[in-house]
């Protein structure tokens, strides 16, 4: 078992954990956090693939690295948008969950 | 000369480690929030400071060394802000009034 495989397994577990939180947690902020964990796990898998592609004197394939950097910024923008929607939801309904009946 | 500098590095870094350990133990063992905050700032200022001091002979001058010193000054500034901010908030809440100046 190498360090790279170890972080790959860690990324896989994070995806599962994020998915679980996304389904199970009722609060919207908790769902946003879980979704970020999920995304972070996916990016970690990308990073593992980049590290395995070390070549030409570079420790990590630069193409997945560049994708991860753009993905981090896009994920941040999406999180901002989700938090803004949550704030409007709280303003309008006084609640922070999505279930419609309660 | 190199040997003396290496010994200096080892001594300073080990001392820094001691302060990090002290900060952690304080954070876990001290009785209330304000004293725990006190423990934290020791690790912030002295622990990092000693590690930076120990690394100074090992980096390229001038830019590597100046970068390390700038980094420690930034950490000092952050610590000097975090302490009062958190402490003020905790104190105000506990006593129900503003702390004396």
């Amino acid at each position, binding site marked *: 078992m190498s*360090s790279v*495989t*170890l*972080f*790959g397994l*860690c990324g*896989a*577990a*994070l*995806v*599962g*954990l994020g*998915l*679980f939180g996304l*389904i*199970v*947690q*009722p609060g919207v*902020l*908790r769902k*946003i*956090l879980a979704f970020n*964990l999920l995304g*972070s796990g996916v990016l970690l898998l990308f990073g*593992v693939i980049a590290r*395995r*592609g*070390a*070549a*030409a004197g*570079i420790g990590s*394939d630069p*193409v997945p*690295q*560049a*994708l*991860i*950097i*753009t993905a*981090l*910024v*896009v994920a*941040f*923008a*999406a*999180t*901002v*948008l989700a*938090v803004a*929607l*949550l*704030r409007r939801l709280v*303003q309008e309904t006084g*609640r*922070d969950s999505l279930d419609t009946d309660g | 000369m190199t040997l003396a500098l290496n010994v200096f590095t080892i001594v300073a870094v080990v001392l820094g480690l001691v302060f990090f350990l002290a900060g952690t133990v304080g954070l876990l063992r001290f009785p209330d929030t304000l004293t725990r905050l006190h423990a934290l700032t020791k690790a912030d200022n002295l622990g990092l400071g000693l590690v930076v001091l120990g690394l100074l002979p090992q980096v390229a001058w001038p830019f590597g060394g100046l970068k390390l010193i700038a980094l420690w000054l*930034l950490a000092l*500034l952050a610590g000097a802000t975090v302490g*009062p*901010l958190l402490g*003020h908030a905790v104190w105000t809440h506990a006593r129900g009034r503003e702390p004396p100046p």
Partner: protein
Amino acid sequence: MSLALAADAGLALLILGLAVWTTIARTAFGAVIGFMAYGFLVALVWVRLAAVDVALTEAALGSGLTGVLLLGAAARLPRDAAAARPGWGLRLAAGVVSAAVAAGLAAVVLLLPVPGPTLAPVATATLPTLGLGNPVTGVLIAYRAIDTLLESVVLVLALIGLWSLARDEDWGGRPDALRAANPGAALVLLAQVLPPLGLLVGVHLFWTGAIAPGGAFQGGTVLAAMWVLTLVAGLTRPPRVGGRGVRLLLVAGPALFLAIGVAGFWLGGAFLAYPAADAKPLILAIEAALTLSIAVALGLLLAGPPGARE
């Protein structure tokens, strides 16, 4: 070598532990703090995976802007409305599905081909003609320039989405929600001393990005964090969202990128191709404009939709 493996195993366990805590913590605030510590440790993992550029991005976003965003959100949650948690059946089903997905991905990780496929030689082949020494910047600005162009547009789209959440009567005003009610002397001092140093670090990251880890995203994020600090302390006020100047700054980066990209049809023979003689100055111009636009866009995203303090 086994020492490094033990350290990495410890790091992975810490990350998983914090992720579990973020998922199951009782309070939203505890979960947010756990998530912030998690992001910090993930930045260390990027260093261990030889991706320092990524680590810089994760650290600049995670320890600066994300904390302000999530802690602000956690503070505005209602206190009394606890939603019903799903029942045991659904939780069990969710657990099974999630475990299956994780197991599938783990199998993929274990079955990856050896040696791993790589695009590094192709992506780095053009670096000398571009005058760049950092392969990641080379990919972002040349090899996969189209991705970066679209990504810089996404930030503007996100801002449009955010602003469209404003109430009708607030439209055209200043997004003032970040400003602290009572900043206090320590915070004001920090907001006076830190931004000049942060400006230096941000410009350094942008400039060094040509040859070493760094670049427009990292530099722009640090600049945005400094601006947000002065907004929180009340030293500066955000611009009105209807203003022409702020809109020009927002689109400057993507617009210049697109213009040079279209000019590539004549100068370099293809969309987003650089003429061999002038590649370096053109790339620097694009990176500088992108840094500025990214900083303004991220700062305004943090400031939220226009409207008074809640």
